[in-house]
């Protein structure tokens, strides 16, 4: 026997909200707008879903951000089945006069202080204004870009984890209260309900028990018990 799917289309979440709360369908489009806003917030703050995509860095070391990228998780190079993460270097100079180009005299091996231990040979710096990531060390190569997306899909129906439905419903109830001019008390009650649902939703992004077990075991030294 199959169970219901773990992902649900956003428009169906709104359909079901209207259905559950016995609302007239005339405000569907308004509720959908609020639901889309809600999903974008939840994607950043509560739903632990992120995008990982292979992108090619230009020969000049420039990587253009995907249009849906809201925040960066990491840039990495796939090597022998594992990811090698780049290090962010805030003082990498970004040349704005010549578009899409790293300074020609940039050398990531510069060091003005004594250096201890190993040093990464791959660096990046994020330029949010121009929506570019400048890469040093992997020019012209394919890298793995991990980022938080808006969660709103322009190429296909937007889906959300079904577990997020109570939080979206609570957000819509709160929005409904504002639209209908409910009392401040009622609006605050609904806002608290939404916040509580978001709090519960965040629980699903906690590490699984198995991961925690692995973590503890990896920290212990094991020896034969005599």
């Amino acid at each position, binding site marked *: 026997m199959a169970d219901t799917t773990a992902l649900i289309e956003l428009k169906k979440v709104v359909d079901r909200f209207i259905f559950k709360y016995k609302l007239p*369908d*005339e405000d569907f*489009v308004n509720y959908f707008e609020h639901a889309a806003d809600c999903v974008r917030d939840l994607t950043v703050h509560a739903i632990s879903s992120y995008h990982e995509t292979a992108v090619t860095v230009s020969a000049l070391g420039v990587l253009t951000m995907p249009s849906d990228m809201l925040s960066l998780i990491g840039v990495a190079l796939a090597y022998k089945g594992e990811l090698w993460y780049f290090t962010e270097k805030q003082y990498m100079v970004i040349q704005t006069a010549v578009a899409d180009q790293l300074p020609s005299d940039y050398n990531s091996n510069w060091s003005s202080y004594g250096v201890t231990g190993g040093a990464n040979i791959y660096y990046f710096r994020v330029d949010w204004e121009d929506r570019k990531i400048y890469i040093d060390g992997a020019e012209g190569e394919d890298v793995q870009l991990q980022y938080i997306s808006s969660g*709103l899909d322009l190429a296909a*129906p937007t889906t959300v984890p079904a577990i997020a439905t109570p939080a979206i419903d609570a957000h819509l109830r709160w929005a409904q209260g504002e639209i209908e001019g409910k009392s401040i008390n009622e609006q605050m009650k609904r806002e608290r309900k939404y916040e509580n649902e978001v709090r519960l939703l965040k629980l699903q992004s906690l590490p699984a028990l198995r991961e925690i077990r692995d973590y503890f075991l990896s920290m212990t030294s094991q020896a034969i018990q005599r």
Partner: protein
Amino acid sequence: MTKAEIVSFVSNNLKKVDKTNKYHARVIESAITLAFNQGYSDIFDKDPRLLDNYTKTYGGGGTPIAITADANTSIYTSTLPEQYVPFRDKNSGVRSVATVAQSAFKLYPMAKREFEIFPNTLSGELNANDPRGYYTVRSNTLEYFGVASVAAAGVRMDIVIPFDKYASTDVVLIPFGKDMQLITAVIEVLRSMPAVDLKDNNADTQ
């Protein structure tokens, strides 16, 4: 009751006003229409969704209502098959519009202003590849957004139409719990018409 039966009932309950005792049928229908509109309005105030019980369906039965793109505006449009009773929400008297065969594709009403702003909204942006149909109700047409995929097949509609637009043989549901009130109201309206002949010689037997 059919429309003809309701009209007949009212007609037979009117005070005789002259020797012929004839009220023009059109006058009676208009009076009933006024009373029914009031009844629909009361139902709307109670719960707009309950009006679904008093709609007439058009576009079913193998003859869907056509949707065509206007040559100048490119807006998809349908001509309404009948007049509707207006209500103060976005649907007005066109209570629902749906694809001819039931499907996951749903159509929702919008206010005219929302209709114009829609492409600039997040919903409008997402609608490009995840289409929902939207419509705005005009006086004798519907204007659509996002119906390109279903336009060829047409749509069906459920409309609250005025009483006088029903065919004589159509069954017309009297707004629930209002039977007595509505019929009495109609008769009261018509009774206020003064008799043309005040001499009391109309009686069958005296």
